[in-house]
């Protein structure tokens, strides 16, 4: 059951709310950004030694860690010649006083499902290359999104981290014996995960009558609703989700989408720059973390 949020964490003092919206009217924001600016994005790929692909993304104060595991499994009966994609999100209690331990809540489920839809519908991964024995065995791509610190706009940070992690994911080496037994050797790789098209999300918040890109956690408390736009590298709309208790007018929807498509292109270029060549980043990284001058945050993750 979905209930109107009643947690004190969702409440912001009226004075602050008014300050934020009056600033927005002037075209500036509390942290000095313009209405259409993303916060600084930092992407560290190959962050984890045990995952087959990983990335830590910092979007302002927001930190999201994505780990990709490639495991043997069975294909779905209706797509016997394709691999399987599974996206889950955990809002771990390290990230926010509002996050409680336990199974994913509606926000975590919504985040995972929106990212899943963008990846699946845009065809980011060519799953037809992931069949091993058609109808019997295929690779399962497990994408686990771990929100480590909640500074707002979790979904875009997660989408960036997911794409960066997928771009550095490699498929383990395997052999199929005559009696169709499959042996997986995780110490070496048979090749990169077939990431054939790139897509991210861009979240547009409605603050008063203004539209803002990449809301912070404080802005999210004042934003009446958000439009999450999946943006493909060819400029198409790869998914949409209106989220939050408010509404948008038809004109605002069109405006938000145009803005998101523009910002999405910039974001995709930035990711491409950070993740230049997956081959060069960490040869044989299993067991050798290739973290560059970054310590993992203090969590029990």
């Amino acid at each position, binding site marked *: 059951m979905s209930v109107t949020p009643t947690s004190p964490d969702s409440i912001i003092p009226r004075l602050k709310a008014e300050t934020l919206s009056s600033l927005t009217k002037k075209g500036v924001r509390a942290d000095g950004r313009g209405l259409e600016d993303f916060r600084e994005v930092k992407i560290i790929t190959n962050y984890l030694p045990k995952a087959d692909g990983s990335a830590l993304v910092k979007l302002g104060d927001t930190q999201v860690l994505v780990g990709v595991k490639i495991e043997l499994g069975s294909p779905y009966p*209706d797509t016997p010649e394709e691999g399987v994609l599974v996206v889950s999100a955990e809002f771990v209690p390290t990230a926010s006083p509002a996050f409680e331990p336990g199974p994913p809540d509606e926000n975590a489920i919504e985040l995972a499902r929106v990212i899943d839809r963008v990846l699946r519908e845009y065809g980011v991964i060519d799953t037809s290359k992931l069949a091993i024995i058609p109808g019997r065995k295929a690779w399962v791509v497990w994408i686990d999104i771990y929100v480590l610190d909640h500074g707002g706009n979790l979904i875009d940070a997660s989408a960036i981290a997911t794409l960066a992690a997928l771009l550095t994911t490699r498929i383990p080496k395997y052999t199929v014996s005559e009696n169709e037994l499959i042996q997986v050797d995780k110490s070496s790789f048979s090749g990169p995960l077939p990431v054939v098209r790139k897509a991210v999300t861009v979240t547009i918040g409605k603050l008063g009558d203004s539209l803002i890109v990449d809301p912070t956690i404080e802005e999210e408390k004042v934003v009446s609703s958000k439009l999450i736009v999946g943006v493909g590298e060819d400029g*198409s*709309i790869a998914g949409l989700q209106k989220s939050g208790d408010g509404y948008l007018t038809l004109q605002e929807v069109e405006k938000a989408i145009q803005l998101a498509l523009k910002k999405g292109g910039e974001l995709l270029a930035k990711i491409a720059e950070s993740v230049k060549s997956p081959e060069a980043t960490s040869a044989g990284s299993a067991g050798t973390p290739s973290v560059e001058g970054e310590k993992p945050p203090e969590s029990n993750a």
Partner: protein
Amino acid sequence: MKREKPKLVSEDGVRHDGRRLDELRPVKMEVGVLSNASGSAYVEFGKTRVIAAVYGPREPPQRYMVLPHRAVLRCRYHMAPFSTDERKNPAPSRREIEISKVIREALEPVVMSEAFPRTSIDVFIEVISADGGTRTAALNAASLALADAGVPMRDLVAAVAVGKVDGYLVLDIDQVEDNYGEADMPVAMAPSLNMVTLLQLNGVLSPQEFSQALNLALKGVNEVYKLQKETLRNKYLVRVE
């Protein structure tokens, strides 16, 4: 088994069930179908059938679950085990949890919750037959049930899904069109207030296609809105001689 994609739209723009591209399925609506609920509604779009019940405003079972300045909305979208081709496990799925959230958020802007502090208004939706477009049918029923319960609202919420099937944009897609189609875009609006209260897209559209799809959705939403108002009028209109 791998299924082959059937042809769903003919060259002259007729769909697999004989509908035109911009035609709704046969719609039925009824309010006041349950005796215990404060308000209720039954909505049918072809083979998609849903029942919605509203309880409240009332004191919620957990007293801490209230707000001092308004009512909380509680919403559950649930599919009956017999509503689908294969039996559905009655435990709430991730899909149902997400849909419950987007339906609640689609109703929040129209319900005048500020009139009932410290109470909850509960909307329970049961899908008894699922053939595509269940979340939009659910929202249409929820909105009617709220009106039937006498909950003050700024407007009704009317919803419909637009899809892209065989390259054509089509109104009110059904299960087959959703399964084999390229995109599914549910839209809900408070039509008199120009509020888009639900918007999702599962699939890929170019910006031009999106604008066309939104226009088609607007046409469908206005038709549904008209039917909703007729349904309420038929129940509540009193003619004075």
